[in-house]
């Protein structure tokens, strides 16, 4: 029963948070600087309660300003991509819906490339690339949702206009790469690959604010998101404002995914795979599935980052590559295992 399922769902969420915490504790001791887990732990303690342990300034800097933000950003980004992936797939009734489908990633990439290649941007200095990526990503979602709203926000209108916008911005990126010098091309490619190492505390603060804004809204709308699965007409007849709900959820997801891709780049697959893992793993209320998708996304991205840091240490692999290499076999296994309806 759902009520019983909800209670066990809470236990599952707590378990996922616990796993995420364990991974974070382990990850803080990983990195090319050769600082072990114990030393990293001491540096963190020192940060919160000064002079508890004798820790060098370099260790303190590496742990507090590089590793901790990296781990937190990986978890926040994974959570954002996972929860938005689930919400997008549900309201668009399409299992392939993700930030890629709506062209948000391509638009963010174009914004970043514009800043890297031509130095054009809305914000100055250190926020030139991030600001551009964010603004263009939001611009893409406004384009897509604006176009779709004229067609009663029908899922196919959202997806098709998203794909069109994706091709538009991808072409823009190609054009910029065509005219750019080799170093700029390299920088654009590096940005497009995605990297949680770009994290900093101020970016984390913004991310936390956006997540705190978007997540309660999605949870509040969770039942309506589930009712849309019965069909638009049925949902409408049950008092759900279908177009408003779809546009609201898409706008909220656009804001969150725009923040994620602006800060860490176009990390693929998490937004697609995390919701499917939750769906394939079992049943549960929409509220549980949203939260679980977020937590699975966080765990996937955080563990992918750990692998990226360790597998060819001291070199760091692009995290987007690792998420796909790790996620695809797991995903295929789950599809093969395919939970059949009973």
């Amino acid at each position, binding site marked *: *029963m*759902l009520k019983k399922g909800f209670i066990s769902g809470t236990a599952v969420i707590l378990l996922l948070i616990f796993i995420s915490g364990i991974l974070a504790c382990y990850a803080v001791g990983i990195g090319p600087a050769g600082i072990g887990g114990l030393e990293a732990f001491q540096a963190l303690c020192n940060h919160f309660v000064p002079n508890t342990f004798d820790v060098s300034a370099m260790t303190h800097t590496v742990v507090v300003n590089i590793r901790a933000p990296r781990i937190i950003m990986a978890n926040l980004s994974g959570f954002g991509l996972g929860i938005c992936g689930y919400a997008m797939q549900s309201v668009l*009734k399409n299992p392939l819906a993700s930030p890629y489908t709506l062209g948000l990633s391509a638009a963010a990439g174009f914004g970043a490339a514009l800043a890297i290649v031509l130095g054009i941007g809305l914000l100055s200095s250190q926020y030139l690339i991030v600001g551009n990526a964010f603004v263009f990503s939001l611009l893409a979602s406004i384009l897509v949702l604006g176009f779709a709203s004229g067609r009663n926000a029908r899922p196919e209108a959202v997806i098709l206009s998203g794909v069109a916008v994706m091709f538009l911005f991808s072409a823009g990126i190609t054009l910029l790469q065509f005219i750019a010098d080799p170093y700029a091309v390299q920088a654009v490619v590096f940005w497009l690959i995605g990297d949680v190492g770009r994290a900093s505390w101020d970016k984390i603060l913004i991310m936390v604010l956006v997540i705190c804004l978007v997540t309660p809204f999605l949870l509040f709308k969770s039942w309506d998101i*589930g009712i849309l699965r019965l069909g638009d007409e049925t949902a*409408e007849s049950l008092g759900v404002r279908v177009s408003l709900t779809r546009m609201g959820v898409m706008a909220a997801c656009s804001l969150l995914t725009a923040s994620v891709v602006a800060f860490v780049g176009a990390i693929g697959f998490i937004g697609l795979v995390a919701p499917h893992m939750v769906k394939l793993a079992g*049943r549960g209320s929409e509220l549980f599935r949203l939260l679980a998708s977020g937590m699975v996304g966080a765990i996937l991205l955080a563990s992918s980052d750990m692998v990226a840091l360790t597998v060819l240490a001291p070199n760091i692999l692009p995290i987007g590559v690792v998420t796909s290499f790790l996620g695809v076999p797991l995903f295929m296994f789950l599809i093969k295992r395919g939970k059949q309806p*009973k």
Partner: protein
Amino acid sequence: MNIKVNEICFSYPDSGRINLISTEVKAGEITCILGPNGSGKSTFLKCLNRLLPAASGTVYIGSEDIGLMSKKKLACLMGYLPQEPPPDQEITVLDAVLMGRRPHTLWRPGKRDFDLARQALTNMHLFHLADRMLASLSGGEVQRVMLARALAQEAKVLLLDEPTNNLDIRHQLGVMRTVRDLADTVNLAAIVVMHDLNLSARFADKILILSNGEIAAAGIPAGVLTSENIREVYKVESSIYMENGLPHVIVKEETKRLAN
């Protein structure tokens, strides 16, 4: 609650319309809407619950004009089962029935909502299926689950758009028997769009035949299902024989073909 429809009109921008349709369905009664494809049956049904905005005319539930109601209030009073089955059937039966409680809640179901959903499943003899996915049920069972949803919704009026579509004879009878039981026991007023003339004759208190968006005939089954009306509306020849006071239609041949 009674539902009274006064001169409802609606036009699609390209083609198709319904024109000045009026009817009244009393609580505990079933009215079947018949008519050829494209005659405006589903459009009429959608105008009743404002899925489509009527160009003119009024619909009253009890003494209240639905045009002045909030969507939520309308959803509390009127249940609707569309023609197509739910597109995503990876939902448990209990969850699907629970969704009927949406108009009565703010954002998520509470204990009373769960109790009412379980009660609806028990009343519809579906409780043993509560944990099953919709995808694993037969078409007839899915329709009964959707009816249980309307029961949990505590709707006073039920609109059903071809609920017996794609069902075998046994399940068709089962679904219509359930609608009849709901009308008799819960005092629901039901408006059912159908294609099967004999099934309509058997379960309806009143039949409305639409043709080109207008009422071609209306009244009790025996008065409406006549060879003349069927020839006029469907362009087919038929003979009617009565059994236990109910008309039975035997379709013979297309009128045009006979004329040739």
